[in-house]
């Protein structure tokens, strides 16, 4: 295993820049997830680390050595491609064992390692099939298997579970995590899935439009997002945002555009009257018949373990999640009390965190 250091990495296609100076430090053995909206450059970044895309500027180090001009085969990395890229003319077993065959590993050893990976991935009965005879999810697992039979310096995963059904995904998620705990191989994992990002990662890197918005431990990102984009991107259902301004006269509070006053634990210095965006996660609303703000319920979605309520607060839509089962009906009013200690404030213009 090896550390991966990315410094001011740049890339453009033709004249269009798609990666604008990305810097990330990944320690030896760390599991990092890369998240961000579609088209933000996650795959491009991963492919540059793998050596499949030329570097437009900056440098990539694996294990301390600059690898900008090192061929992919000499980087000792394993990658799971977003589109699988299985060899159509090889069987599942041959696909998985190809890297080992190339290294000249003993045939019996290859068979044993392939069999072990196949067992983990639930592919045991399929080893003699060709990729065209597999379902999408099975192909994805073969692509996964091709990476995990190896013992590389770094694992690169590009949305490796996107095609699996919910149950299998949870199961595979646990397998990958368990694998990582056993092997401690540095891993970079691209995903769209919130839960995957949060549960698997030692650290999450949030990207947007070819830039890193924030990098940090999952709960740090959740609790203290650096800006409104990260706040909205991490967490599901997403954080509620209300526009308005800060008011400080004795106690700090936030006044929404509809004139509703929300308490704040504290305000940033010298911010009275400043336009801002108030952010609150859905689970930080409580139902309080005494001091709550009356909001009109639009939709009630019980999931069994919790109840999700979509409501209108001062003309803006908010979502609340409650552990208790609610009997509220659409159209009724619900007294909600935001938890002031959990509120976030963001700049109205550039979305940067104020508090």
């Amino acid at each position, binding site marked *: 295993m090896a550390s991966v250091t990315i410094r001011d990495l740049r890339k453009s296609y033709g004249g269009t820049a798609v990666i604008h100076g990305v810097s990330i430090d990944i320690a030896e053995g760390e599991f990092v997830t890369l998240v961000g909206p579609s088209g933000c450059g996650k795959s491009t970044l991963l492919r540059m680390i*793998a*050596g*499949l895309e030329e570097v437009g500027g900056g440098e990539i180090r694996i294990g301390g050595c600059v690898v900008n001009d090192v*061929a*992919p*085969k000499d980087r000792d*990395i*394993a*990658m799971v*491609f*977003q*589109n*699988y*890229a*299985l*060899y*159509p*003319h090889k069987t599942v077993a041959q696909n998985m064992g*190809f*890297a080992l065959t*190339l*290294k000249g590993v003993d045939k019996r050893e290859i068979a044993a390692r392939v069999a072990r990976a196949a067992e983990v991935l639930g592919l045991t009965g399929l080893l003699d099939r*060709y*990729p*065209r*005879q*597999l379902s*999408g999810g099975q*192909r994805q697992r073969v692509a996964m298997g*091709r990476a995990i039979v190896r013992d590389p310096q770094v694992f690169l995963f590009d949305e490796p579970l996107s*095609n699996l059904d919910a149950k299998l995904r949870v199961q595979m998620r646990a397998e990958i995590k368990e694998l990582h705990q056993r092997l401690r191989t540095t891993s970079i994992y691209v995903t769209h899935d919130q839960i995957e990002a949060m549960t698997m990662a030692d650290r999450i890197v949030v990207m947007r439009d070819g830039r890193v918005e924030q990098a940090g431990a999952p709960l740090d990102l959740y609790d203290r997002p650096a800006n409104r984009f990260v706040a909205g991107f991490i967490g599901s259902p997403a954080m509620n945002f209300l526009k308005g301004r800060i008011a400080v006269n004795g106690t700090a509070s936030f006044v929404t555009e509809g004139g509703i006053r929300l308490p704040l634990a504290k305000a940033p210095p010298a911010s009275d009257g400043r336009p801002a965006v108030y952010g609150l996660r859905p689970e930080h609303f409580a139902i309080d018949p005494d001091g709550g703000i009356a909001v009109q319920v639009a939709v009630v979605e019980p999931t069994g373990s919790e109840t999700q309520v979509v409501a209108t607060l001062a003309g803006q839509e908010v979502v609340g999640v409650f552990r208790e089962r609610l009997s509220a009906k659409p159209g009724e009013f619900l007294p909600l009390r935001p938890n002031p200690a959990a509120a976030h404030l963001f700049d109205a213009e550039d979305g940067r965190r104020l508090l």
Partner: protein
Amino acid sequence: MTDVLPIPAKPLRARVDVRSSRRPWPLLKGRRIGLHVAALALLLAVLFPFLWMVQMAFRPADDVLGDALLFRPTLENFASLWQGTFPRSFVNSLLVSTLSTATSLALGVPAAYVLSRWCFRARGRVSLWILATRMAPPIAFTIPFFLAYRWVGLQDTVIGLALIYMTFNISIVIWFMQTFFAAIPKALEEAAWIDGCGVWQAFWRVTLPLAAPGLAATAVFCFIFSWNDFFFALILTRTNAITAPVAITNFLQYEGWEWGKIAAGGTLVMLPVLVFTLLVRKYLVRGLTAGGLK
């Protein structure tokens, strides 16, 4: 069996396809009988000259131009071919064709791969000029080749002839294979690089096997071109390196045309072409890249 079928052409064909892949003789009814008869008639018309030649080859010498359909087939025409110089010409043909096919593939396939994968500025122009070498009429090259070969001593040699066919085939190889390579997703090579292949190793172990159907088609094409050529063989060979098609014309002599030998020779010359085509047919119909990508 369901009732058939006065419905539009498309679903009809789809349904019959399924059926005919299961049973050798699909149900013949009404319109379909007409179609089959027409196809058969067309086939006979096209094959008639060829079939006529074949039956001539088996006729006894005194009845070679006879038209009675019933005769006692004999191998005497083939036997007399065997005694002359024809076997040598036949071997020459095989040698020349195989050699030129092998060399043009060995040189053309890597070139095609590079042209399909490596984006450099003059790529389009290079491809076009390679094809242009094939567009010029052969007669334009004849005199230069003839003089040059006499000078370097390649006249009337198997190698010399193979070289010429190679120069013609290589442009075809490059053009064909470039398209076949372009159809193979680059992602598969990238996966191979990650798995530890170098550029040529990925080509050899992943790309080329996937291009096998195209490679087979191209090889057949090259072989048949070399095999069928008459023009260059006539001009550049005299005795040693004479090829089968030229040898056959030697049976057209002042003192009489040896029809039996001509027919037998013609039949033999057809043979490798048939065999080759049947051998690669299996490859030509099958796509190999299915299932590799999402």
